[in-house]
């Protein structure tokens, strides 16, 4: 273990154009682009499916099918097919992002539609009965109530993307995967294990950020009563009825 520690704490490895800082930034960059694209596809589609109840079966099957595709194989196929169409770095970046997006969409999509489907039907019904339009029902009731599951889809997708983005190094892109591949090539186990530790640490840090955002974004009324801080506070108010 000590060589992992030595590798991680040696300032020399952190600096420079192939140092840890740069690789971290690249890795985060791939993950961020992937998640933005995947969310832009998965969330609207999931909301639509949940709200209208249409197309659910087709999408569930498709998502499950995608899950069974081997990621590395898909990556090589994508490079072979998309690569020649593009020039320069983009020739590798676009296929890599494409594959990551394919991987990232299903959990986000599932979270969004499961979130909408989990909304109490009587709340939805009351919203309509009070004169809300279909659009108002979606944005004022369904989406706010679906947020916990939307977040959980985003978070599991994020963890998966950060872990899988190491594969980009195998098609000569950057990211933390470089340390794994280069470490193996040079039999530098400190670098390999250190890279793995960094991937895990990055995933946890990003998840923590999501947890904080979720805490702020989700109404306290949707948090189970026992764990909400509010209920502990309001219990002090005498109950009049």
């Amino acid at each position, binding site marked *: 273990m000590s060589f992992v520690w030595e590798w991680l704490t040696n300032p020399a490895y952190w600096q420079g154009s192939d140092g840890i800082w740069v690789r971290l930034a690249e890795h985060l960059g791939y993950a961020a682009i992937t998640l933005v694209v995947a969310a832009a596809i998965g969330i609207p589609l999931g909301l639509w499916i949940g709200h209208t109840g249409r197309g659910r079966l087709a999408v569930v099957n498709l998502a499950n099918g995608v899950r069974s595709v081997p990621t590395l194989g898909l990556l090589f196929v994508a490079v072979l097919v998309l690569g020649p169409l593009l020039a320069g770095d983009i020739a590798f970046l676009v296929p890599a992002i494409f594959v990551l997006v394919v991987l990232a969409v299903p959990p986000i999509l599932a979270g969004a539609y499961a979130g909408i489907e989990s909304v109490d039907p009587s709340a939805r*019904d009351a*919203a*309509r009965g*009070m004169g809300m339009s279909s659009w108002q029902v979606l944005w004022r009731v369904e989406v706010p109530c679906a947020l916990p599951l939307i977040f959980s889809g985003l978070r599991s997708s994020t963890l998966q993307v950060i872990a899988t983005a190491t594969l980009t190094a195998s098609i000569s892109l950057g990211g933390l995967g470089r340390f794994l591949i280069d470490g193996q090539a040079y039999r530098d186990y400190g670098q390999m294990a250190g890279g793995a530790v960094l991937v895990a640490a990055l995933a946890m840090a990003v998840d923590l950020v999501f947890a904080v955002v979720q805490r702020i974004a989700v109404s306290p009324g949707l948090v189970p009563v026992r764990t909400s801080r*509010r209920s502990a506070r309001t219990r002090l*108010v005498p109950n009049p009825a």
Partner: protein
Amino acid sequence: MIALREVTKVYPGGTAAVEGLSLVMPTGQITVLVGPSGCGKTTTLRMINRMIEPTSGTIEVDGRDTASLNPGVLRRGMGYVIQGGGLFPHRTVLDNIATVPLLLGWDRRRARSVAAEQMERVGLASGLAKRYPNELSGGQQQRVGVARALAADPPVMLMDEPFSAVDPVVREQLQDEFLRLQAELGKTIVFVTHDIDEAIKLGDQVAVLRVGGALAQLAAPAELLADPADDFVADFLGRDRGYRGLAFTAAPDLPIAPEPTVVLGADGDTARLTAAGRGWLLVVDQADAPLGWVQPTQLSGAVTRETLHRGGTVATVGGSLRAALDAALSSPSRRGVLVDDDGRLVGTVRAQDVLTEIEREPQRSPS
């Protein structure tokens, strides 16, 4: 006024939930739809605000065919209390209540202040305003549902079993408050319940539906009890119809006898002296409000709360024959206690005098 004309609803799949229903619901009155589960009550209610479109027939609100109105506008003009509550879990009590005012485009501050007024109106403490629905008791949630429907002061209220999910004591409390509120507001209310006692208590008129959604009888509660249209209605009304019907006849001039009393805390000798040989003696408080009965001969000391027999109900002078009769029947002395509107003792009445009154008017016209 809401008028249903020959309204039929057949669901896809062929269930005829409502069939040829014609019904007029007068302005400012409570019309109760009652009937066994699955008889089409909810379907009927939801056709009024077009949550469900009738298969055939027309529904008019104040002379206008609802089919010609925008559903959103129609619904925002009608308070709707949904079966099962339907509160928004992500919104505080106050914001739940402010929903329709905000939809109508009121500014936030005005919507919130009106919501706070509604909370007071339905008996919700202001301390609950910032709570979320999952932090409320069942009774409180139902009150929020009613307050939310009332918030924009709609002339029409559609209420689908609003008091069904609470225990009998709370339900009775909510019903009493509801009647008090309606006396103040005079809304046109369509009230759905499967509880015939609730229907009889709350309705100005009661529509009894049979399974399949046909109207079995439309009548005022007293008439319903006195003259059920057929066996189905009679069965549905249940037992004790004669007795329950007495609730709708005001007791006119019952012979009220003065009743000797002692104040709580009096000593045993005073009690025995006052009773002058009667088995039971009425105990009152300082304000002359009846508290219960004691048997002076059984007293070992003073008249205390522990010695009181509280079995007797108390009727109000000018109240119903049912209340007067029940007061007499439930009193251990068989003398029914009558009080005035402020709760002060007036005197007592005997069951046979109430019965004489009932027999004197055998052909009571429904009130």
